[in-house]
């Protein structure tokens, strides 16, 4: 059921093309034949090839020129140079240019068989390395990347270790910014699939029209603009983990398609007719309440049961306040290094403001707040002033316990602008695009005052 290997034989001699292609076809591969370098490049626009067998001497574009072009545009395609007996020095030159191996005509049948097996394995490793290089920095951490010593987090670490080795689908629930992707990466890093790729898909960020071809891949010509075949993310995730972030955003049609993949363990590229084996572990995450979505009919119950074999809940930051100092110090060090700022600690009083804050945006918000403080810091220690805008109690009565309310946002915004403008009402009103009397009314309404002043 695996997709067949695809080879191309590029040789101006028909007899060589035919013999080599006939031999390769017996290995159940699809083999294309090109009689010139130019024709080979045309074919490469249409199909992905595993191995190219290229004659070094051809009229027009020779084997060397083709080799150079292929290695530039399709670095993971393996190229074998074919030379005639007595021109081995050309082969050496070709190897210097990046050819993966060479064959001297006529070849020993045993050698050809071993060469093809070796090169296919080499190509698989090339693709894997290519992918891992891009992923390795993100994936290496495992649970080390997740900071926290609170009871809910320690319980979460235990659960991750427990469930990681199984193959069951995992659904991670948690508010936005709680680090759901880090948890998914940690599960992957401790699973049997650790050696395979971790492929995250942000379902909310990919336009609906592109989602299908992103996930399943497509064949050439399956729609306007599909000028070459493309592997889908499910195919890329072979042997690894597929992470569907914001799974609640998936359209009902896509839910049906994914459900089919999970049931049949096989899928088709868009416009493709050959089934491709799916081999991945699924981890999904959402901040939504999917049971409500099911009741509302926007999320399929059968799909939900497939993705929700194991459920993990990542606690919100306000539920693990004891982790805030550790997290804040962690971000401080990280950001200070990244931005090359000589900031090394947060004053105790400032830390208290952070601990008392409600963190509707969770860890992501905390990271942003610390980053802002580091970037604007004028001393090596961050004082409470840097976080004053977070804590309404320091400047006025708490008006609304829900810091995400519109009133709260408006109040904070007005206070920030006033402070930036050193309480110059005219300038602040101009920035806020209201007239001065309106601004005075708002200041009275929210009980805002200048630090050290009596209320207006």
């Amino acid at each position: 059921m695996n997709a067949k290997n695809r080879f191309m034989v590029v040789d101006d001699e028909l007899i060589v093309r035919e013999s080599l292609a006939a031999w390769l076809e017996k290995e159940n591969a699809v083999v294309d034949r090109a009689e010139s370098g130019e024709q080979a490049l045309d074919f490469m626009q249409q199909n992905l090839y595993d191995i190219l067998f290229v004659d070094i001497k051809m009229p027009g574009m020779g084997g060397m020129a083709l080799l150079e072009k292929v290695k530039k545009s399709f670095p993971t395609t393996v190229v074998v140079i074919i030379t005639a007996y007595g021109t081995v020095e050309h082969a050496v030159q070709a190897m210097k240019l990046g050819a993966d191996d060479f064959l001297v005509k006529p070849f020993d049948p045993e050698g050809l068989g071993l060469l093809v097996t070796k090169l296919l394995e080499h190509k698989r490793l090339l693709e894997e390395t290519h992918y891992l290089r891009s992923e390795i920095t993100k994936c290496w951490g495992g649970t080390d990347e997740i900071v926290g010593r609170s009871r809910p987090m320690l319980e979460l670490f235990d659960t991750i270790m427990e469930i990681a080795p199984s193959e069951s689908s995992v659904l991670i629930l948690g508010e936005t910014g709680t680090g759901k992707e880090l948890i998914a990466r940690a599960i992957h890093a401790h699973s049997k699939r650790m050696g395979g790729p971790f492929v995250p898909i942000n379902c909310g960020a990919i336009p609906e029209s592109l989602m299908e071809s992103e996930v399943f891949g497509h064949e050439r010509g399956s729609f306007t603009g599909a000028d070459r075949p493309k592997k889908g993310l499910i195919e890329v995730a072979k042997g690894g983990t597929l992470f569907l972030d914001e799974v609640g955003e998936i359209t009902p049609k896509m839910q049906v398609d994914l459900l089919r993949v999970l049931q049949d363990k096989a899928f088709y590229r868009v416009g493709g007719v050959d089934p491709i084996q799916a081999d991945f572990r699924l981890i999904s995450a959402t901040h939504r309440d999917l049971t409500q979505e099911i009741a509302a009919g926007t999320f399929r119950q059968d799909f939900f049961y497939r993705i929700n074999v194991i459920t993990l809940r990542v606690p919100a930051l306000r539920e693990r306040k004891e982790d805030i100092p550790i997290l804040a110090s962690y971000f401080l060090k990280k950001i200070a290094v990244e931005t090359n700022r000589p900031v090394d600690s947060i004053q105790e009083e400032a830390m208290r403001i952070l601990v008392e804050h409600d963190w509707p945006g969770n860890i992501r918000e905390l990271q942003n707040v610390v980053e802002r403080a580091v970037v604007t810091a004028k001393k090596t220690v961050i004082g409470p002033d840097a976080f004053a805008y977070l804590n309404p109690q320091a400047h006025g009565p708490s008006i609304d316990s829900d810091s995400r309310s519109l009133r709260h946002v408006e109040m904070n915004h007005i206070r920030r602008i006033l402070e930036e403008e050193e309480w110059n009402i005219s300038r602040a009103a101009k920035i806020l695009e209201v007239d001065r009397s309106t601004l005075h009314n708002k200041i009275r309404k929210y009980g805002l005052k200048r630090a050290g002043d009596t209320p207006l």
Partner: protein
Amino acid sequence: MGRAEEDVLTVVGDSLQGLLRLPVDLLDPIPIPQHTFMEERNQYNAMGIIKFMDQEYPANPVKILGVTRADLCNPILTYVFGEAYMGGKSAVMSYARLHLGEANKFVSREQFLDRVVKVAIHEIGHTFNLPHCHQGRCVMRPSNTIPDLDSKLNYLCPYCELFLFEALSALLRGR
């Protein structure tokens, strides 16, 4: 093709008849076409022989297998035990290299004939579109050397057998 020994032809005919459950005719010998001889290699070009047979026997037999004692090669390989195109009509096999065993000693006639049967079935299998099989010791496993040939069995694995009969019935339906 050329002078082939009788017991070789008989064992090839019998084994193919047993495998395909179709009558197998042993034709009168014909010379190997001279244009397929590659002087610089002192071998015959197997692909050339196949093309010749395709032209020579266009109509009746379902498949045709040329058997020769002459050593075969093809334009890219230094030698072949046999040759066939996938789904082609004709195949050819040589027993020039099948006599010798370890330390270049002649093997028994039984072992030699067992090798002959393996090559014959393997090449005829390709003409029924069977690709190389990597399941166990199926006769469709690629065998480029004598030890490879000896280590596989002289019959098809259940999968290849199924595919062979599907191809065969499709072919017979179409006739």
